[in-house]
């Protein structure tokens, strides 16, 4: 995408200004969004983003700029502006680039640039709409979306790295609203991956619509949730957001290096119940949070974060490695060229255990079964996190009683990790978007069903 000679001249210019390290991140992103409302296409949008990010490093200081232009003069002008206050005696020019083709771990068949497949996408979403509507007369509205992205990236750096990759993302989803008089409730379903439109083969639009409608109908009948401290069984898949918020963000060197993580000095220590094993893995084939290379050009990897409750690794990008001394884990990620990279999660999950869900529910006198979770957030400095229950049930005497609504679970990372007492076998993954210092990124969360012995449930009863 960017002429190699231009790239070389900009990197050389940065080094001549005394930068310890410099890299260029070049990005072209094609986007196609199809949205339906009820049984009609509401909008189809498409676009192209293109830009170049320039990063200079002086010691631990990061200087970052970006532009939509590709000419050497503009790129050097930005470089000079960035370095104006830090320029020092010139270093020798770099020795050229070594072009490396990353291993393609995530083969794609139907790319956006080949064919946006507009008719097929519309047909899929309208079939889901129909399936949701026939479920019940209480279903009053549906929405559907299909988002497809083709992101070409290219990285050049002053250590001679030149590499490029193409990432294809596709995500499909539907939501339903159930209404009964003045009461309204929602449900939703989505699936996606680092994959092309061939994702359609694994999606059943009827199942998609049925599931969204089922959730909406359950929530329509839900009662206010009891509140207070209680045991909670958290369902598989998106339930993994508990680990993402309670622990994952606290293991990113973006927080660790600043000591803005409660785990910053606990490497090798027992930080979770010994039944907990946790992983961040960018290699999983065609998963939503997977990569071939990170946004600093490093090959992705599987990183064991917690083994038998013991902290075994942080998530480390280039600056994190420099600041903490830990090896890079291929975790430098960014939303697009307008952000400098930071250490971020990929596919992050708790591994399977050996408990059964009936055993977990059966062990509860009074508590909650959070079958499906919504999103959450965390303050890394204190570990305080929250996440929302999208579909929940009150449990009494070891049995599920009735659905409940509007519940949030809150705790701190160190506390909740020690309260996970049982881990199930029904492992699954779910995709989401994670927002942090380097923007909004595709990340996968996952877990089998697990039991937290004691956590604060915020309900409205």
């Amino acid at each position, binding site marked *: 995408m960017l002429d190699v000679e231009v790239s070389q001249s900009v990197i050389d210019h940065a080094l001549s200004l005394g930068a310890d390290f410099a890299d260029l991140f070049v990005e072209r992103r094609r986007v196609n969004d199809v949205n339906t409302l009820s049984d009609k296409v509401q*909008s189809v949008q498409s676009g192209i983003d293109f830009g170049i990010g320039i990063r200079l490093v002086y010691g631990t200081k990061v200087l970052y*700029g970006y532009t939509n232009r590709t000419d050497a003069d503009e790129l050097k002008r930005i470089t000079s502006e960035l370095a104006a206050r830090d320029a020092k005696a010139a270093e020798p020019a770099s020795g050229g680039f070594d072009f490396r083709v990353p291993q393609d771990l995530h083969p794609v068949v139907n790319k956006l640039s080949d064919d946006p497949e507009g008719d097929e996408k519309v047909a899929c979403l309208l079939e889901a709409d129909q399936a949701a509507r026939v479920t019940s007369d209480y279903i009053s509205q549906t929405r559907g979306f299909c988002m497809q992205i083709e992101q070409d990236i290219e990285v050049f750096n002053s250590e001679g790295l030149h590499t490029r990759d193409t990432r294809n993302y596709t995500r499909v989803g539907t939501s339903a609203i159930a209404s009964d008089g003045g009461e309204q409730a929602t449900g939703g379903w989505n699936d996606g991956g680092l994959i092309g439109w061939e994702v359609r083969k694994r999606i059943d639009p009827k199942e998609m619509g049925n599931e969204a409608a089922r959730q909406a109908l359950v929530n329509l009948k839900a009662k206010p949730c009891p509140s207070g401290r209680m045991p909670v069984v958290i369902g598989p898949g998106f339930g993994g957001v508990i680990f993402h918020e309670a622990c994952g963000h606290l293991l990113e060197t973006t927080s660790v290096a600043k000591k803005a993580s409660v785990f910053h000095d606990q490497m090798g220590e027992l930080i979770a119940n010994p039944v907990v094993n946790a992983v961040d893995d960018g290699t999983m084939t065609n998963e939503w949070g997977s990569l071939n290379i990170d946004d600093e050009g490093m090959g992705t990897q599987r990183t064991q974060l917690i083994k038998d409750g013991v902290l075994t690794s942080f998530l480390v990008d280039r600056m994190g490695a420099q600041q903490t001394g830990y090896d890079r884990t291929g975790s430098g990620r960014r939303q697009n060229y307008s952000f400098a990279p930071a250490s971020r999660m990929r596919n992050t999950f708790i591994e399977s255990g050996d408990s059964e869900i009936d055993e977990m529910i059966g062990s509860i006198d009074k508590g909650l079964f959070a079958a499906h979770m919504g999103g959450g957030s965390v303050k890394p400095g204190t570990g305080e996190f*929250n996440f929302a229950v999208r579909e929940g049930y009150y449990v009494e005497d070891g049995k599920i009683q009735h659905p409940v609504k509007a519940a949030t679970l809150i705790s701190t990372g160190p506390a909740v990790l020690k309260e996970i007492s049982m881990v199930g076998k029904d492992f699954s993954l779910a995709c989401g978007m994670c927002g942090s210092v380097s923007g909004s990124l595709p990340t996968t969360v996952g877990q089998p069903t697990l039991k937290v012995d004691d956590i604060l449930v915020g309900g409205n009863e």
Partner: protein
Amino acid sequence: MTTQDRANSVLDQVNAAGASGDLIVDASQSLSLKARNGDLEEYKVSSRQVYGLRVIKDGRVGTAYSEDSDASALESIVEQAIVNASFAGEDLNETILPNAGELRTDDALLHPEEETNIEDQIEMALRLERELGSRNKVTSVPYNGVQDTSSERQVFTSSGMSALSRSRVCVCYAYAIAEEGDNNAMEGAGQVSRLFSDLDDARVVDKAHTDCLSILEGKPVPSKHYDVIFDEETQTDMFGVFASMFSGKSAKDGVNPMRDKVGEGIADQRLTIRDNPLIIEGQGYALFDAEGTATRATPLIVDGKLETLIHNSATASHFDLQTTGHASRSPRSTLGVSLHQIEILPGTESEASLKSGEYVELTNLDGLHSGGNPISGDFSFGAAGYLCKDGHRVQPVRGITVAGNFFQMLKKIAAIGSEQKWNWQKDSLMPSIRFSDVAISG
């Protein structure tokens, strides 16, 4: 080739294809500084431009955008937008308004001239970290920064309108982590202004430090229903989560529970809310919307009764109404609606009466993006604040949740204060409201 030339070329192609359309061109330049350990951690400069086209052909709407502004890229977005329109359902309500002529915002007001020295901006970033980091019990200042962004938006339509708006936003902020024994807390503060010289970083440091220490020894309160007063930040957050209750677009889409309630009482009779883009000192000040329609103060709830939803020309046409001047659109989006700056009119309650007896003052809400459902009105958020009695904070409170139904809460107002306050982003002006019978879990 100027932006006007490019716009003319694009709209000529749109006309030649038998369509009408509008083109938004956004450009921005920004500086972002962050400090760490006494030195700059981040120095970020940016320059960005994007062209976003909406076309309407045979009653169908399509959009496309490009960050590349060469002739072939702009030709491509015309083709893409027209192809995209061919998939869309017919909607005869959406048209390009026959507004013509030139509109321009007042630079002296929204983008005032100021000679800003970069060294002064760097010094402020360093000072924020240094001063807050040196305060009692503060162990680090992990998040801090100074930002200066100049933005320009041009809108061109096939009916001959040309609108130019320019704005500048300067921001400084800092978050501290304080520790004492086994307790720790992270709190922050910020300020936004149109002039760098109006930023008061010392005040930001004082507020961040005070808030951090005040909450440090916070603990849960017993679970029960309390009267609750949100501070100006969290009250703005609450109304923001449920702002789509005023959306004519959501009503048109069948996902706004207030759709059929215009003219009905939906809140306590003492509550009056309006959208007021004409308050000059607010960051939401605007004289025209994304379709070029003049804005005005719009009563939304008057004496508890829902007066109107907010509309662009398309949603207004759908309901056989007039636009309320709330059209919104970015280069990357379709036509929508949005509030400019929300204002709740002051009540008559004295401070002493508003804050009599026991109540919980909430100064922090967590999980706003996930814990509220704007369709059902249900919410449950992590929260922090203070247990208060007769206007005095008697105990900092942390590790609690607040839950309820926002639409029902609007009917359970115990008192409305008589003094309006801006939130720190300065786009919301509200008095304190005391809500009764809110579920707090601790």
